[in-house]
């Protein structure tokens, strides 16, 4: 993704301010930031599901050298369907309640990749087994309401990997889950990603999760990239003051007596100046 800018239609400010980031095959990139920083917006832009009210002002989204934004809507839909997937945030609303699990996984294989029903069916069975669902055949015939939250998230993970996509966007996949299930799901996603060699864009606000699963990291503030680095460089010495403050603000379980540290005022002022500077260039250009 290069120099992507977007805004709410008709609104003066920008949601994304010249965001550039890339995810290489087999890489897991964390995308962190506060609420409203534009993390989910980036994920949605890549997948072509931006809300109607949001328009892309400039920039390009490159997938294997093709700019997705330049494709005709139908081609883009097929292209994204064949090579991108989403692991959504809330497993409770991410499966269609009135359809069985089976077709929800296999539809894409049949419609976009042109597989036969039987082939897609056996593929779905294998995937469910891979995410450690004990009775795949039964689950394929069940409706979402018959499954628990953790089970549904597994189904969604399996479904995301179904078409062997090049890129998967995981939009806070563990936020809606129980803490005990979270760890398991994380391990599952990381394991699947490693086995399939998929590029994974991991949207989250939890730096702890980033340190466990990601290799590289992009920090957003107000739609502006403030840090873009490898995870192993970031945690010992974050470059940007905001990133440093963010890291300091992470609660430490090792020291239960410590109070929460807010991001200092001057850091926020500094970053706001940076945002304003970016916008000045944009207005005159």
């Amino acid at each position, binding site marked *: 993704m290069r120099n992507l800018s977007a805004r709410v239609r008709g609104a003066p400010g920008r949601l994304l301010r010249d965001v550039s980031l890339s995810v290489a095959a087999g890489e897991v990139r964390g995308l962190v930031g506060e609420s409203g920083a534009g993390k989910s917006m980036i994920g*949605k832009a890549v*997948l*072509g*599901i931006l809300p*109607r009210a949001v328009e892309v002002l400039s920039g390009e989204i490159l997938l294997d050298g093709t700019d997705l934004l330049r494709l005709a809507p*139908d081609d883009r*839909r*097929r292209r*994204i*369907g*064949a090579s*991108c*997937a*989403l692991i*959504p*945030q*809330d497993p409770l*609303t*991410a*499966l*269609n*309640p*009135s*359809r069985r699990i089976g077709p929800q996984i296999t*539809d*894409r294989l049949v*419609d*976009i990749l042109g597989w036969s029903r039987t082939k897609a069916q056996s593929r779905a069975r294998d995937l469910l087994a891979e995410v450690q669902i004990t009775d795949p055949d039964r689950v394929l015939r069940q*409706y979402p*309401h018959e499954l628990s939250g953790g089970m549904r998230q597994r189904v*969604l993970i399996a*479904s995301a990997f179904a078409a062997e996509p090049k890129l998967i966007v995981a939009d806070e996949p563990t936020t809606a889950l129980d803490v005990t299930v979270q760890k398991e799901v994380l391990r599952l996603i990381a394991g699947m990603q490693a086995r399939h060699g998929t590029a994974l864009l991991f949207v989250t606000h939890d730096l702890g999760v980033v340190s466990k699963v990601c290799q590289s990291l992009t920090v957003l503030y107000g739609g502006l990239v403030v840090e873009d680095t490898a995870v192993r460089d970031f945690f010992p010495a974050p470059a940007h003051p905001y990133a440093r403050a963010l890291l300091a603000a992470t609660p430490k379980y090792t020291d239960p007596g410590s109070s929460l540290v807010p991001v200092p005022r001057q850091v926020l002022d500094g970053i706001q100046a940076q945002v304003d500077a970016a916008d000045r260039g944009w207005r005159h250009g």
Partner: protein
Amino acid sequence: MADGRGQMRHRVGLRLWLSAGWLTLLCLAALLAPWISPKDPLAQDLFLGRLPPFWMEGAEPGYWLGTDSLGRDVLSRILHGARVAMTVALVAGTVTCLIGAALGLLAGVLHGWVDIVISRLIDIWMAFPPVLFSILLIAVIGPGLGAIILAIVVIDWTRFARVVRAEAMAQAAMDYVASAQVAGRGRLGTMLVEILPNVLPMIVVLLTLEMGIAVIVEAILSFVNLSISTDDPTWGGMIAEGRTSVHQAWWVLVFPLITLFLTVLSFSQLGEGLKDRFDPVLR
């Protein structure tokens, strides 16, 4: 715990079966009216006027529910009246549902100018007082079965469009729709495969309610003599006639009224019962 659930299921089942049973009975009566009616519903016999129903003194054998002031058999007239009532209910209800739900779904899923046009149309439409509007319509196109059905469709499609639009919008905002779109589903597919099945339980409930409403509208129009032009008996017409002689012969008014009441009640309960039974989210 188990007992409570058992009773609950039983009650739900009973509601469904009672209402479905009554409506089936009515449909059969409507279909078979010429063969099962004990008398000719139009035959007048002034010597047999205002005969009471069978359990009262002075009843004549063969006239189970008595006769009206012109000596016509009440039971036969109710059975024949079911023909008009059920035709209107099924045809008008279904057509209204199809048109209203289709427009509502389009408005809810497509947004943009489609939504604006349909929504404003609904707003304008709902500003007309329905009964006056239907009387006006019938006055213009002339009475008849087709006219009644048309009037109901033209007036009541907003009922479906409004509710289906809101529900479709709520469903379209769910994550599963976004997932399906990432998986390459187009707009038409999203609408028909993802959203429609989730709006369907609500459409079914609305449909059965609408059928009940259609029965009432037909009765109202018959009551004010704007229904079908022939002498064919209708429940609304019977109620209107019975009203004038309620002190001498209450049965002419009461029996069609009870039939009408049970029918409308059954339609609404059928919808609720079906929803409880088949909605995968509630089940």
